[in-house]
């Protein structure tokens, strides 16, 4: 028997009860799977906790589903539908494009054209396996081409153009260097000659297949898979177009100078359509037929263009220098699978994390979906960090990142599923990975199977759960301790703003609320000023400036730059989000350090061991002493946990008045004794000097703080990813749980908070 393989995803990743959810399943080795809906109660199998728990939910879903193999189009490109075949050219024509190829050579790449790989019909401008610019045409029988003699130099801008006259068969290929001091990877001091001009008489006239015109790829087809796109291009393409005649040398020189052709058939002006709020996924054709090109797998807009000169470091300052669109052969923002089954959770379904569990033979997959209640039903909301889940989706760090083992201080522990995903390379990358040409990945989507939101999944790098599977520990404990809760998600908060939070007395953050949009920060802030109570129970939160794409909320965008623990570094000028126009990077670089909102901000990370919190003197103030009811004066809090054996670990946040922690904040407890595998984070380092690890630097610690806001609002923050994963230990009855109970019991009540009366001037005899 062949191995059965099952993969799937839910769209949307989170929905209100009563709204339908599509599940897409791809199966190999079976035509049928058993299917049921389960509620995910606890994820990790660590014997110190309750273990893996799921509950079957009675539904009207068919117990077996017919499934098929579904194929995924990897790689970004742009498609010009061209229904009237205006680009099926029989007369003379010129195609031209500014290109910045990042990986010329190796495999054939198509820059633009109307080319059918299978039939060998049409024409295209591309890069041949030798790494040289090439223009080829085919009549279905024979392919003929003209090749530039100059090799393309990686990451250097050139204007590429080819003209062809079927009357004479004359083809001209021109490559004109447009490198300046700013726009390319290397500068003009390199004595490369980027120019080429080859004339050749071809023996073939193009025939035309019934296919679209593509930018950064070519049409391919096979019986099993159907139509898809291959010979994908890696690199940037700036303004491009087609002219229905052979352009002269002077006319080409004019384009290389920056003026668009006078009489284009199409002119994809990639600088057209920029607003202060970014740019969408459609590349505008300003030519007479408006043959716009639609991005597939989200080509990256707002990249520095061929004429970039460094002075204007954002497209908002000068869109004309931001015409570049970056294409990658391994980009993926939508698998585009057809739905296998739809499920509409009943309106009375308990809010929680559910999954479609599909089984065939030994293969099983749980496809998670977060169900929000149809209307607010509980006093407590848990904000599931869906932005973070996407940011880390299918991260490859253990396999690809050389420094990963040094960061986490672990030898990775991989599972069979990791091996499978690593081998397939089909389900896309995380914002912690690099594209094949080394560029950082800035988009991530839920429209694909994501291994690391599976309930029992442990992050390979450190052998404990991360994000969603870790957050199940908090949900399990709330249930264990008898607190009703509703789930909301980052996406809900981003979309609805304050309205998503107002029904709740208190809102809990999960283990790692790292990726935040402006709307989410605003809503949280307004909630707090309006008397809301936030329990920030994570590490490294409110960190990256992130946005959900307005035209596709399944997809988030982040650009990593300047400072912070960043898996990659955006190229100069490319730090602004194409989807919103905001400067990305850290929120603290934009005047919104997380300390200003929840009192804490990122200070250290390490993954060798976690430590307990120790009470600080402020915890004995009557304003907050109630939080520690039932806890000894010198008792260590959380010297246990599913994540590295402590409640303070993995990623830690610190109180810092200099970064905007509210001045009336009380420092309740701090973690102690961290190892040197917890170094101070890079954004805290202005001068580098030795001794910034846990054994020498007092800033390496996790803090527990409390402050009140107007209208009986308050923030409790325990700045550690490990915090919530300490809750399930000892059967759920432990001192981390005691702190949580004291807080929740107070936070769900209306009116004044305990201790709020103790506002007097301090006059102590002692």
């Amino acid at each position, binding site marked *: 028997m062949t191995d059965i393989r099952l993969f799937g995803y839910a769209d949307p990743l989170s929905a209100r009860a009563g709204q339908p959810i599509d599940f897409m399943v791809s199966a190999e080795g079976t035509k049928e799977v058993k299917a049921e809906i389960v509620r995910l109660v606890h994820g990790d199998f660590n014997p110190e906790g309750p273990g893996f728990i799921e509950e079957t939910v009675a539904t009207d879903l068919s117990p077996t589903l017919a499934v098929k193999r579904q194929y995924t189009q990897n790689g970004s490109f742009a498609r010009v539908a061209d229904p009237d075949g205006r680009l099926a050219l029989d007369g003379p024509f010129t195609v031209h494009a500014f290109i910045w190829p990042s990986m010329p050579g190796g495999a054939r790449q198509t820059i633009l054209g109307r080319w059918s790989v299978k039939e060998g019909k049409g024409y295209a401008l591309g890069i041949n396996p030798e790494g040289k610019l090439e223009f080829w045409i085919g009549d279905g029988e024979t392919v003929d081409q003209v090749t530039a*003699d*100059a090799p393309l130099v990686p990451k250097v801008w050139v204007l590429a153009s080819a003209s062809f006259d079927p009357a004479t068969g004359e083809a001209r290929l021109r490559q004109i260097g447009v490198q300046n001091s700013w726009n390319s990877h290397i500068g003009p001091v390199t004595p490369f000659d980027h120019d080429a001009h080859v004339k050749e008489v071809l023996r073939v006239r193009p025939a035309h297949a019934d296919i679209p015109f593509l930018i950064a790829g070519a049409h391919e087809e096979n019986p099993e898979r159907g139509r898809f796109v291959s010979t994908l291009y890696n690199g940037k393409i700036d303004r491009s177009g087609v002219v229905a005649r052979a352009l002269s040398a002077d006319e080409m020189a004019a384009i290389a100078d920056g003026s668009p052709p006078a009489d284009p058939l199409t002119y994809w002006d990639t600088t057209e359509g920029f607003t202060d709020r970014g740019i969408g996924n459609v590349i505008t054709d300003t030519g007479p037929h408006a043959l716009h090109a639609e991005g597939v797998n989200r080509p990256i807009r707002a990249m520095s263009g061929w004429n970039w000169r460094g002075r204007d470091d954002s497209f908002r300052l000068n869109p004309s220098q931001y015409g570049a669109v970056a294409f990658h052969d391994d980009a993926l923002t939508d698998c585009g699978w057809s739905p296998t089954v739809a499920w509409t959770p009943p309106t009375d379904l308990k809010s929680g994390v559910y999954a479609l569990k599909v089984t065939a033979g030994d293969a099983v997959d749980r496809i998670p979906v977060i169900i929000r209640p149809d209307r607010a039903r509980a006093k407590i909301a848990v904000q599931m960090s869906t932005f973070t889940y996407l940011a880390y989706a299918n991260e490859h760090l253990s396999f690809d990142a050389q420094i990963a083992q040094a960061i986490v201080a672990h030898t990775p522990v991989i599972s069979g599923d990791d091996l499978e995903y690593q081998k397939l390379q089909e389900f896309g990358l995380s914002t912690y990975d690099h594209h094949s040409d080394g560029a950082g990945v800035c988009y991530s989507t839920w429209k694909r199977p994501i291994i690391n939101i599976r309930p029992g999944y442990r992050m390979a790098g450190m*052998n404990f759960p991360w994000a969603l599977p870790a957050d199940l520990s908090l949900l399990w404990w709330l249930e264990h301790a008898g607190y009703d809760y509703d789930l909301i998600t980052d996406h809900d908060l981003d979309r609805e703003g304050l309205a998503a939070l107002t029904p709740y007395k208190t809102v809990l953050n999960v283990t790692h609320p790292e990726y935040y949009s402006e709307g989410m920060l605003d809503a949280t802030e307004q909630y707090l000023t309006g008397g809301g109570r936030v329990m920030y129970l994570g590490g490294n939160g409110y960190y990256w400036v992130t946005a959900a794409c307005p035209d596709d909320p399944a997809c988030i965008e982040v650009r990593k730059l300047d400072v912070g623990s960043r898996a990659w570094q955006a190229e100069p000028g490319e730090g602004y989000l194409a989807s919103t126009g905001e400067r990305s990077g850290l929120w603290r670089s934009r005047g919104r350090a997380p300390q200003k909102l929840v009192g804490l901000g990122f200070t250290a990370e390490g993954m060798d061991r976690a430590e307990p919190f120790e009470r600080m003197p402020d915890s004995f103030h009557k304003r907050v002493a109630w939080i520690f009811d039932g806890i000894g004066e010198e008792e260590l809090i959380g010297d246990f946990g599913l994540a590295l054996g402590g409640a303070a670990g993995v990623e830690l946040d610190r109180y810092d008045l200099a970064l905007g922690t509210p001045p009336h904040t009380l420092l309740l407890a701090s973690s102690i*004794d961290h*190892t040197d595998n917890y170094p101070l984070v890079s954004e805290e380092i202005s001068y580098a000097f030795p001794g910034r690890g846990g054994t020498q630097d007092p800033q390496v610690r996790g803090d527990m703080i409390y402050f009140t806001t107007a209208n009986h609002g308050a923030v409790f923050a325990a700045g550690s990813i490990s915090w919530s994963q300490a809750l399930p230990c000892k059967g759920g009855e432990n001192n981390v749980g005691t702190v949580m109970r004291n807080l929740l019991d107070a936070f769900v009540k209306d009116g004044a908070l305990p201790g709020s009366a103790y506002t007097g001037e301090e006059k102590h005899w002692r």
Partner: protein
Amino acid sequence: MTERTYHKVGRRPWELRGTPDGAAERARARVPGARRHWLKWRDVHNPKTLRRERILADKKPLWWTIGLSALAVTTPFLPNSLISVVSIFCIYAAINVLWTLIVGTAGIFSLATLAVVGVSGYVAAAANVYLGVPWPFMLLIGPAVGFVFGAILAAPSTRLDGLYYALLTMGVAEICRVFVMQLKALTQTGGAITQVDSFIPEDWFLQRPGLLLGFAGAFALLLGALLVWRLVNSERLGLLLRVARTSREDEAFAEAVGIDFRRARLWVFVISSAALGVVGAFYAMYYRSISPQIFSLDQLLLLFAMMVIGGLGRAEGAVVGAAIVVLIDKGLPELGPIRIIIVAAIMIGVTIFAREGLTGARDQFRDFRKRKAGERRALRTEKGGEAMPEEATEVHDKQELYYRRFNKRLRDRLKGLITPELIEEHRRDPLGRHSDALGRVLNYFRRGEMADKYIIHRMEPAVEKFRIMAVSGVRGMPPRVVDDREYDDIREAYHAVFLLRVNDLLES
């Protein structure tokens, strides 16, 4: 540590290279009727200067032109005896080139090559002598016979493999010989057909003008054979077969990827046979006769010697081999039977010392030089140690060279830190609060490059059963299993990885 010697590296270019101007328009001419260019000019960036240089990427056409022109120009000045040697060389070279197509390109090990030449020659000669067909038509009859005979011979080639097919074709040659010998009509001449009309006028025969005309014809024949070789090999048929070459053993695979592999092979065989038919007709005309000698085993073995000496599967091999053997066999008759011994000795020598005949010697020399360089480097540098200047020329990222130096010295220091106590400290708590020494050792391990970096594989979901693997460092290429040991405690697995790394460190 041994004293190092630093040799200066760097070479002047020996090859003439063009200095193209990118801005200038360049019109590329093509071979008429084809898509190919006359010469394979390629521009490269010289990695030393980054300047653009134009090189002739394929110099074979140049060597062919020089060689063949030299032959054409010098032959008319040679004495009569040598002119006929050169002509015979041309004929044999033509046969050899076509045979190379059959053996090399089609991959059919046929020994009936001379049989095809002979049968075509006989039929063409007979048509001329007995039917009075004028001689120019012999050049049509020959290939027609070759085509038919080739088709008959080709049929069993896909059924029989290798040695059996070779034996079969040898048998066919022998049958031809016996058949011709037993023909009553030819008993007077010992099986030969004589008085064949020719493109060489009768009264010029064996005279200088006749010899020169014979050479001209033979030279044209060789050019024709080379053209056939070129067309078959670089057009669709040859390309198909080249694609399938890696999978010659697996025709099913070739067919699965859409290559009609058998058909292509048969076509190459039949086309070559037809061309051999032309040679047959020419042969009969050149000698004005044809004898059963053409079917004999010694002729076949002489041909075989040419192939082996020149190198199988290459046109230049076929020609060079023919030149050497013909020069010895026909050019030095005064040596007597010793000639054959010399040919045999050369053949054995080439077989022993050259992998792919004389024309493969260049590649072989390059491999040899590479291997020697590797050996010398291994002697001069330690594994993972500093790169010497020779090796540095091959490292693109020069920072790598510093990393090597740095890491080598770092490793030497770290080796001194490895003690039983340190190993015991790690065993007690692989994720613990570590001493400064252990922390340094671990940090070195963890920062190591990705290729072959150790990871732990949880063998079943949620079960504490582990083994150690090493990642490839290449995206999509799965990790390899390091050994078959299994661990049921993650701490043991961490420590096992540590021990492997300590071992690697101490061995480095």
